């Protein structure tokens, strides 16, 4: 088995258009959530979100690219460029033939669906642009990354709602660990912040109208975000041989299915994924210093997640730190695990723990150290990243300082 390390990271989200800007915002505990701005927002009852601002796609992509890139693809390519450029890898020959890209998204080209449904239903048009299908398909982003960076190995898209990017990164990790691929580009993206995307979420009545306050007793729901997080996962020996800068090591993962309910989370399913990741990483529970929580800010998730952590870690649950950065960037749905992995990297590499902001009242059902409101400087050896999706599909990654 190969050791797997991360040698490149890229992002765009409501907190910033780069990893550096995002980590600065997390250190400051800055909130990227604000009033939504798009057509027909006045017809929504939920009017806030973690929207990416100041992103001028027209300046980055040419006309032909614009006709093929949905916003989720634009985010992906922007983050991939940052990650791959940081890694310093160029894909040629055998490396290109074996390396691939596995990404997560829940909705794919949601705004392309939205715009074109509007055009044929509301505006009564009988013709749509010929590229609607290749623009909206869930694998569009992965395919464009493969074309842009010459990745000819295993490439596909994983769609498991809010766990999509954790499942994707787990796949990429397995491929590098097994020796199947020397390098994998992985992560995820989402862009559902359009009228139809938010309207669908409103229907569930789990959205907050004012703020995302994970673990706080007065929390009142989740807030959607958008953006992408992309990473370069690389065989440790390959990275060392070329003198690459290593951000951290990926040491294990686990996936589980609740097999219980289509929306309500299960403590047992979450606990099995967390415990499974520790077992896969062959690491003792008390080595874990930080968990990036799924922490959606809903009543159901946060208490179930805290109970699962308490079950797996026992007395050590009171000593570790667990925070939800969704309080700052919102819930990126299929891309959320990817952006949240950055908080794990910051904890391991920089010794800075991102806070759970918006925290106002302790909840006895979430009685863990949730790093309320202010970042903390603590050295951490091992971090976990949780993702628990609708449909009861869970994926947890374990990372280690290097």
């Amino acid at each position, binding site marked *: 088995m190969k050791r797997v390390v991360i040698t490149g990271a890229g992002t765009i989200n409501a907190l910033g258009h780069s990893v550096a800007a995002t980590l600065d915002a997390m250190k400051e505990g800055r909130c990227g959530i604000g009033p939504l701005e798009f057509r027909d927002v006045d017809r929504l009852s939920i009017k806030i979100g973690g929207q990416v601002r100041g992103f001028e796609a027209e300046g980055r992509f040419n006309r032909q690219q614009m006709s093929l890139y949905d916003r989720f693809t634009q985010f992906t390519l922007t983050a991939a460029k940052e990650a791959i450029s940081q890694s310093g890898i160029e894909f040629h020959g055998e490396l290109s033939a074996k390396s691939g890209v596995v990404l997560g998204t829940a909705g794919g080209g949601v705004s392309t669906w939205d715009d074109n449904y509007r055009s044929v239903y509301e505006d009564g048009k009988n*013709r749509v*642009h010929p*590229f609607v299908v290749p623009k909206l398909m869930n694998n569009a982003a992965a395919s464009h990354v493969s074309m842009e960076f010459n990745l000819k190995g295993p490439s596909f898209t994983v769609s498991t709602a809010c766990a999509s990017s954790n499942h994707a990164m787990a796949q990429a990790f397995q491929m590098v660990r097994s020796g199947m691929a020397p390098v994998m580009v992985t992560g995820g993206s989402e862009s559902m912040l359009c009228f139809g995307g938010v309207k669908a979420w409103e229907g569930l009545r789990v959205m907050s109208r004012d703020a995302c306050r994970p673990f706080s007793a007065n929390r009142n729901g989740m807030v959607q975000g958008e953006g992408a997080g992309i990473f370069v996962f690389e065989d440790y020996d390959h990275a060392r041989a070329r003198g690459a800068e290593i951000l951290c090591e990926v040491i294990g993962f686990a996936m589980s299915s609740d097999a219980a309910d289509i929306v309500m989370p299960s403590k047992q399913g979450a606990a099995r994924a967390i415990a499974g990741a520790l077992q896969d990483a062959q690491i003792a529970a008390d080595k874990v210093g930080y968990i990036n929580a799924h922490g959606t800010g809903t009543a159901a998730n946060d208490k179930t997640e805290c109970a699962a952590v308490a079950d797996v870690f026992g007395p050590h649950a009171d000593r570790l730190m667990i925070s939800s950065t969704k309080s700052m960037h919102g819930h990126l749905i299929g891309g959320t695990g990817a952006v949240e992995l950055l908080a794990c990297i910051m904890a391991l590499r920089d010794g800075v723990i991102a806070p759970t902001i918006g925290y106002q009242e302790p909840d006895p059902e979430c009685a863990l150290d949730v790093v309320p409101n202010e970042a903390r400087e603590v050295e951490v050896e091992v971090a976990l990243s949780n993702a628990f999706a609708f449909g009861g599909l869970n994926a947890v990654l374990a990372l280690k300082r290097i």
Partner: protein
Amino acid sequence: MSIQDKVIAIIAEQAVLEPSDVTLESTLEDLGIDSLGLVESIFAIEEEFDITVPFNANAPEESDFDISNVAAIIAGIEKLTTETA
């Protein structure tokens, strides 16, 4: 603008050329327009003239619409716009 000028403008935009670089004898291949570029051009033509072009990308040679060069495309559109009117 005549039908000819409008079609040439659409094709030129697709080929990222000046309209003056597009001649009646030019083929789509000469202009560097691939199959995706062709369906996008046909979409733009349909939008511009409010017509339906009988073109099937699976079997271009069997379509009742000649795309062998710019002149043929213009002739086909002139015929379709007359039928619509």
